[in-house]
């Protein structure tokens, strides 16, 4: 009932636990399970499938980290979090990492004491409206009622955008994506706004996706990435370099199909270092040599994970766009494995 009070209490209890705990890497190893915070259900990014198995873009990253640290991609406890509960869950130690379409911002990084380990999806906030309204630009939305997920950066971007364009709107704050979808379809709001990827995912789950259009304006930069608690750098390094391993694997042409062959040794020293046949990178991380190979084996490299969950072949149908490798005009750029 009083959710925030409970959260407050959880924060207090969790901070007590967090302070006493040792490094997260050891905790995870001792527990034999990775606690990974994900969304409460956003198709393509993280949602349970028909068998109750979590699937999605963010889920794959959790599994990759579990494979790297524990050697078992299924040793993950998925903790669904809302926009409101996610930071408390991470700060309190209830989850070891958060992979939940979370925008990397200054205040979250600095003031909330979290560490964003990288960006796994470059996104921006967009608008979805019913086609019958005949709206072709977000600047025509004067006086519209807008559904927003509360507790996200979208709320602030929205206020800024309408203010900057000197037009008015009625916000309808909503707790989860599912509720927002229901409200939007019932006509309780004219517009639904969230990250463009989330809009595409939501629209894909509609009965008639063609009746709704995404407006061309992208009103913000939303670099989404996994994050961990401030201060535990060993753990931060593990998550960061697991993400980088997936990105580098795509760049270097390592796929789930050829990884076994490549893990036997190749002529490319960087591939060898990545897969642990050369150098001692795994040891430096406090893991064994083939940590990255295990992470890549789970669902393949970054490109494969993208294509399988949210790519153009899927109902969500997102183009790579900014999320292509730097070699192909995108922003994905992993530091070298050296």
């Amino acid at each position, binding site marked *: 009932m009083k959710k925030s009070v409970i959260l*407050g209490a959880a924060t207090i209890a969790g901070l*007590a636990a967090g302070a006493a705990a040792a490094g997260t890497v050891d905790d995870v190893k001792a527990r034999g399970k990775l606690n990974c915070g994900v969304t409460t259900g956003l198709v393509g990014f993280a949602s349970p499938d028909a068998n109750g198995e979590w699937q999605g873009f963010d889920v794959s990253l959790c599994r990759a980290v579990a494979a790297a640290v524990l050697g078992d991609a299924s040793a993950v406890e998925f903790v669904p979090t809302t926009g409101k509960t996610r930071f408390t869950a991470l*700060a309190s130690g209830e989850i070891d990492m958060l992979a939940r379409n979370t925008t990397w911002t200054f*205040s979250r990084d600095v003031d909330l004491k979290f560490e964003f380990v990288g960006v796994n999806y470059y996104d921006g906030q967009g608008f979805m409206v019913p086609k019958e*309204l005949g709206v072709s630009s977000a600047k025509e939305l004067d006086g519209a009622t807008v559904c927003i997920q509360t507790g996200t950066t979208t709320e602030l971007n929205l206020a800024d955008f309408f203010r900057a364009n000197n037009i008015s709107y*009625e916000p309808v704050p909503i707790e989860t994506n599912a509720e927002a979808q229901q409200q939007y379809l019932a*006509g309780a709001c004219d517009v639904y706004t969230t990250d463009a990827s989330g809009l595409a995912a939501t629209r894909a789950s509609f009965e008639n996706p063609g009746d709704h259009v995404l407006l061309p304006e992208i009103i913000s930069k939303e670099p989404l990435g996994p994050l961990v608690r401030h201060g535990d750098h060993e753990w931060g390094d593990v998550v960061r370099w697991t993400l980088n391993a997936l990105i580098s694997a795509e760049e270097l042409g390592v796929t789930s199909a050829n990884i076994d062959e490549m893990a036997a040794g190749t002529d490319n020293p960087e591939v060898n270092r990545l897969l642990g046949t050369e150098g001692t990178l795994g040891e430096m991380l406090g893991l064994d040599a083939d940590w990255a190979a295990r992470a890549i084996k789970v669902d393949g490299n970054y490109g494969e994970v993208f294509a399988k969950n949210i790519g153009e072949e899927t109902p969500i149908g997102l183009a790579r766009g900014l999320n292509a490798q730097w070699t192909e005009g995108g922003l994905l750029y992993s530091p070298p494995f050296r």
Partner: protein
Amino acid sequence: MSTMTDPPKADFRLSMLINDTRYRSLTFQVIAAIVIALSIWYLGNNLIQNLRAAGLNISYSFLGDPSGYDINQRLIEYDSQASHGRAAVVGILNTLLVAFLACITATLFGVIAGVLRLSNNWLISKLMAFYVEIFRNIPVLIWILIIFFIITASMPAPRAYLGEDAERGMTLGLFAFTNRGIYVPFPYFTGGFGGIANWLLVIAVLVASYFSTRVVNKNAQLKQEKTGIRPNTLLLNAAIWLVPLIVVLFLLGLSWDLPDPLANRFNLRGGLQIGAPLIALWFALSIYTGAFIAENVRAGIQAISKGQTEAAAALGLRQGRIMNLVILPQALRVIIPPLISQYLNITKNSSLAIAVGYADITATLGGITLNQTGRAIECVLLLMLFYLTASLLISMVMNIYNASVKLKER
């Protein structure tokens, strides 16, 4: 027996703290108090230590920073450039508004259902029993959600009212019922002193009318006691209420702001919008708490001895007057104390507002502000302080009222 023969010794021995019944309870209470104080100190200290270890500190300076978000229902001036503190005030006013409205309607529902449940009419009493049992046995959150979903699903979207050739015309040309809320005409003044001063003037006139009618009634009462004939005051009272009000409203230039279906392509503009979240929350809280109040009212009425009803009937009073003049005034003594806790429940349950996107204090300060600033402990402490203060104030007011209706012992 020994105390009778041996006078108690003056000197105090330590073992008396346990063995002597005069001191024993005191000893245990002191020990318990120390244990409680130590545990609170331990928890508090633990919190402070851990916050420090995590590099966080308790600070309320964020309340002065711009909030950056908009709120859909605001009783005071507010926009996204206003501070978090102001957003909290907007939330507080919204909480108080819905709590106030729900307290009034819940009392109304409760009294009606409670009285009717004791009716001799089988159908009516069973219907009321049905109402009470259905509503108080399902959680209020579910009622809030179901009412909200019914509103959003069954009412037309505002679009149906918009444009030159709208699907639907407004009821009487004044009201629009949509799934985002109800639009009604709103009065405003074209002349006068502008803003709030006009409204204060109107209220002052009404208060003056009230006291004038009291004087008139008192004079009528005196005359009745002296001569036995009560002069007819109906017309005079009506004139005292209406004439000054009409004059003042005319002088201030009263106009009505009507909902305009042509001003905007998404929503009706103008008038007063009573949002769907407010309606859902208000109605759900009233009907749910009303069921509890009905039971209090029934208990209060049944606590009055049947002899009272029979005596009043013997005097020739009709059923309705027996209830109003004899039973209810006495029953109030039993009804008021549990009624206070129902009012407190309404106020606290209004924190479920976020479920339907109503911007109460839990949604603004405890929701968006908490989230955007990450100041969980500070925000939750403030929330606790607010609900505690509000509840204690309601208790105080109701206790004063209770003291005025309870049996006077002289």
